[in-house]
């Protein structure tokens, strides 16, 4: 095999792996968003807190001065409905739901929600009910 063929093979392998990996990541991020929405709808606050990113969970607890599962009860998070669109770039993702937008990040423990209850504000960052630092 010549160098050109080897390079082509390597590029194909990287592209295939990257594309396969992107689909997988999108599915995993979507699953985390769905898990968050199901927990919210069912009032399972412990599960909801488990899907939050560490920084977001910490912020929720600090601003409410209560443990996370109690603090989220007071948050006005809308029931988002089904996921209509996912954007995944690297370790960051956005899930656009029927009535809400979630932001997620990837950790060793999987995808976690970094911000929820988010409303777009044009060129400004989303206004979110809960978010990290």
């Amino acid at each position, binding site marked *: 095999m010549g160098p050109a063929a080897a390079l082509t093979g390597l590029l194909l392998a*990287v592209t295939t792996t*990257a594309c396969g990996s992107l689909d997988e990541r999108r599915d995993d991020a979507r699953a985390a968003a769905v898990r968050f929405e199901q927990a919210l709808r069912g009032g399972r606050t412990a599960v909801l807190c488990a899907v939050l*990113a*560490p*920084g*977001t969970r*910490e912020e929720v607890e600090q601003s409410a001065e209560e443990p996370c599962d109690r603090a989220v009860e007071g948050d006005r998070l809308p029931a988002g409905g089904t996921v209509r669109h996912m*954007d995944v*770039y*690297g*370790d*960051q*993702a*956005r899930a656009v739901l029927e009535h809400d937008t979630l*932001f997620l*990040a*990837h*950790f*060793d423990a999987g995808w976690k929600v*970094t*911000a929820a209850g*988010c409303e*777009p504000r044009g060129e*400004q*960052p*989303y206004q*979110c009910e809960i*978010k*990290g*630092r």
Partner: protein
Amino acid sequence: MRGFLYDNGLGLAFGAAFVLALAGQAIAGRAEFNSDLITDGLQPVGYLAYLTSSDFAVDVTENWQSEYLQFFLYISVTVWLVQRGSPESKPVDKAGLESDHEQLTGEHARPDSPRWAAAHDWRQAVYSHSLGLVMGTIFLMCWFSQSVTGVASYNEKQLRRLEAPVDWGEYLARAEFWSRTLQNWQSELLAVASMAVLSIYLRQRGSPESKPVGASHSSTGVEG
């Protein structure tokens, strides 16, 4: 073995230095990337994740495209433009594509000339511009790669800032794409202009990029 190393010292030395510099860029780039992630309360990434990230890819390709643009322009523009007194320029009365006799093409090709130089059809036309074509093509490919990896890197940062991602077309109209592009172009163009002009008056003994030390300032197209 010694003969091979000696005969290819320039390519090997720059190739090795390239690998070391790229490794250094990966180490420093990952440290900076992780510092930003930690500030945002996110998880830092390992080397493999960083080396396959859009952040690393855009930083690499934005520099590559400008280097190949520099060589593409230098190769092409020096056909037509001259710089009196510069070893980087050909003699001032030689501007243009030059004759077949001077270029050893067609019937003026020698026995050891590349075969396509002797051809009388499209092959001679292609081979006559092959260096510029390849450099220009690599430039365009790297610039396209910069745009694709750039939009991915930009969108990753957008999502971290809780902002909406943009598509490729929108990214091409964004300030970031042009800031990354033009900051590299300006430095390459400055380097070429500096080399063309400084080499009129300054010398580097033994370097083929310089005129001989004793050559006059007015001699053009003479390399030591």
